[in-house]
């Protein structure tokens, strides 16, 4: 670059000759140079701005175009990548604790019609009515010839039915793929599983939603694709459930009962291994709830969870356990049991107006099931402490089990826990709870004294709950329950090898109009086995059972629920892997006798 000098010699000399100021020339030149420099830097800056704005424009245009493309194009699965966590089915399976299927999905078809493209409407209606007997030909034809452009005919089709509809050959009859819920075991665990039905329906698919039981309680889990098809593992054991249901069904028929319920619970973890309520239903074809009559008579009613009844003398063990825990009595303390006992305008009697008194040991109060004995002990404990103890054991709240019905089954008791409530609650009257409550209560009290929560989910390990009673009280209570079976009211409960211990409970059913039925009972047997080191709790409850094998019908739990429970234990204990405890064989004895 040629740099023009600020003071060109020629002009300076000329200026000097003419007498002008040569500095003006320098100033003029300096000005010109500055102007040139300014123009140059402006040009450069403008160029940079242009480049930058072009760059930004391109970047934003790219982002915008990509967004538009993504929004406008059809979604597509990534094809080149290997499949990772694929969605296997719309709804995950439910299995028992050993992985055997309790609920799964099956692919099937639904049938719908588009009348405008049907060829021979009359023939289609006739043929459809022939294939599906529940459809009416006239109604179908009316639907087809009306103004409707679309109608559902059937929600589920078997493959044979699909073929038959195909054979009609009408182009207006169309199939939509469907996933349906299948319960291969039928009625077996009906109340636990509940059932499923279709939610929102479209031509290409339909939502499968749970309507009751575990299916509804775990609806979100079962439908969550993030689980990758992992099944829901329940604590139920299929073979044990079968055996319990079979024996309970037989027992219910034999004892002429209206209904029956059984809960078998792991005493340490609170896992429900089997839970049966009879009568039951087929979840594949769930009946609609009856709108009239007593909902408790419906097969949909889960007696084990929703059946809130007074459970009778089975509660006595809680009274004695609390009394021992508070140090008021010991197992061999003699307590006043002189019947009948007068309290205000009430008279507390024993069963059959007997009198076991005047004094009974605490163990014998349980063995003979003395109402007066427990009433006296409860009065010593006091209402506040008794209510608190029952609350700890979960008898005042709905069970936390994972069924959608459970929160609705709230125990019934007087809000005002008066002294008479204290007395009656000590032997299980005036407070109503479900068999599941009782199972949880017995488990908590007798497993060594730590609280368990009933659960339907399989747990590999469960942390020990908070302590309810001391280990000694738990052991003493187990010993009392064992004696109820060896020499008390539950003598039919003996099962060789399994050291059954338990307590019977017979309570009259309340009338809807108030008062109690004389000849309608709820018979309950709460058992643990083996009582020296218990593993399982079993509750059997029978509704309006009576043993009519003798002249007079026997309606006590000892004659109805206990034999059924014994048979359940005999059948179920080997399935649970419990080896029978065999008494020591003594050396052969030889006795010399004279003739």
């Amino acid at each position: 670059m040629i740099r023009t000098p600020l003071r060109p010699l020629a002009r300076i000399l000329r200026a000097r000759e003419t007498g002008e100021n040569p500095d003006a020339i320098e100033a003029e030149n300096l000005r010109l140079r500055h102007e040139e420099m300014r123009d140059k830097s402006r040009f450069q800056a403008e160029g940079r701005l242009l480049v930058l704005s072009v760059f930004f424009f391109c970047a934003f245009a790219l982002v915008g175009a990509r967004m538009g493309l993504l929004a406008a194009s059809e979604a597509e699965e990534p094809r080149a990548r290997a499949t990772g966590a694929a969605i296997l089915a719309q709804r995950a399976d439910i299995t028992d604790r050993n992985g055997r299927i309790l609920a799964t999905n099956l692919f099937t078809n639904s049938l719908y019609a588009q009348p405008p493209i049907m060829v021979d409407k009359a023939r289609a209606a006739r043929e459809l009515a022939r294939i599906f007997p529940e459809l009416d030909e006239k109604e179908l034809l009316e639907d087809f010839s009306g103004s409707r452009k679309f109608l559902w005919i059937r929600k589920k089709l078997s493959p044979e039915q699909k073929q038959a509809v195909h054979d009609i050959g009408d182009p207006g009859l169309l199939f939509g793929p469907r996933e349906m819920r299948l319960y291969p075991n039928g009625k077996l665990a009906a109340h636990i599983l509940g059932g499923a039905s279709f939610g929102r329906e479209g031509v290409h698919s339909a939502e499968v939603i749970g309507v009751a039981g575990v299916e509804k309680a775990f609806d979100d889990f079962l439908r969550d694709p993030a689980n990758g098809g992992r099944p829901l593992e329940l604590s139920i054991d299929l073979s044990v459930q079968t055996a319990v249901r079979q024996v309970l069904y037989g027992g219910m028929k034999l004892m002429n009962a209206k209904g029956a319920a059984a809960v078998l619970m792991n005493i340490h973890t609170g896992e429900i291994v089997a839970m049966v309520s009879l009568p039951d239903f087929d979840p594949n074809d769930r009946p609609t709830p009856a709108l009239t009559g007593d909902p408790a008579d419906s097969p949909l009613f889960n007696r084990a969870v929703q059946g809130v009844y007074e459970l009778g003398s089975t509660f006595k063990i809680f009274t004695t356990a609390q009394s021992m825990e508070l140090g008021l009595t010991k197992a061999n303390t003699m307590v006043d049991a002189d019947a009948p006992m007068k309290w205000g305008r009430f008279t507390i009697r024993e069963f059959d107006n007997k009198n076991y008194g005047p004094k009974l040991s605490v163990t014998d109060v349980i063995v003979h099931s003395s109402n007066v004995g427990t009433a006296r002990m409860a009065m010593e404990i006091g209402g506040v402490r008794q209510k608190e103890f029952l609350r700890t054991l979960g008898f005042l709240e709905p069970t936390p089990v994972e069924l959608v019905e459970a929160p609705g089954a709230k125990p019934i008791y007087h809000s005002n826990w008066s002294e008479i409530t204290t007395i009656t609650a000590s032997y299980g009257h005036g407070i109503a709870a479900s068999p599941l409550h009782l199972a949880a209560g017995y488990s908590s009290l007798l497993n060594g004294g730590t609280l368990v929560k009933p659960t339907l989910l399989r747990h590999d390990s469960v942390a020990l709950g908070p302590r309810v009673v001391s280990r000694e009280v738990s052991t003493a209570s187990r010993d009392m329950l064992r004696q109820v079976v060896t020499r008390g009211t539950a003598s039919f409960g003996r099962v060789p090898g399994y050291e059954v211990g338990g307590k019977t409970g017979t309570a009259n059913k309340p009338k809807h109009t108030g008062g109690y039925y004389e000849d309608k009972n709820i018979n309950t047997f709460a058992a643990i086995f083996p009582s020296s080191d218990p593993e399982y709790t079993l509750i059997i409850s029978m509704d309006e059972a009576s043993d009519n094998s003798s002249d007079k019908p026997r309606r006590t739990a000892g004659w109805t629920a206990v034999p059924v429970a014994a048979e359940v234990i005999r059948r179920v204990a080997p399935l649970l892997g419990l080896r029978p405890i065999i008494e020591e064989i003594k050396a052969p004895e030889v006795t010399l006798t004279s003739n």
Partner: protein
Amino acid sequence: MKSVLYVLSAMAVMGLAFWAYNENYQTQQALKEVDRLQRDIGERREALAVLRAEWAYLNRPERLNDLVNMNFERLSLLPLTPEQFGRVDQLSYPVAPEAVTLEIDNSVAVQGDQP
């Protein structure tokens, strides 16, 4: 010298074009294959689900019970009872005769009381 370079680069461009063309078609072929396999896997999974459901249905306890009852003459299967379930040392074997020592010195009847 220059013309050789031109010819070589032209040939290189043609070669690369051919390679890219080939690669493109191979990719499309592979994607088609993947699609087919995915569909195949889907169908098999569906079939597997049906088979599993059928297995569960055929092995439902109710049906097994009926089958056992129908074939009782040949199988003689009964529910497991506690007596069939124990350890070997819990079995009561017959007592060896020499284990029983008897000293009978009077003329009374001897009555054994074996468990």
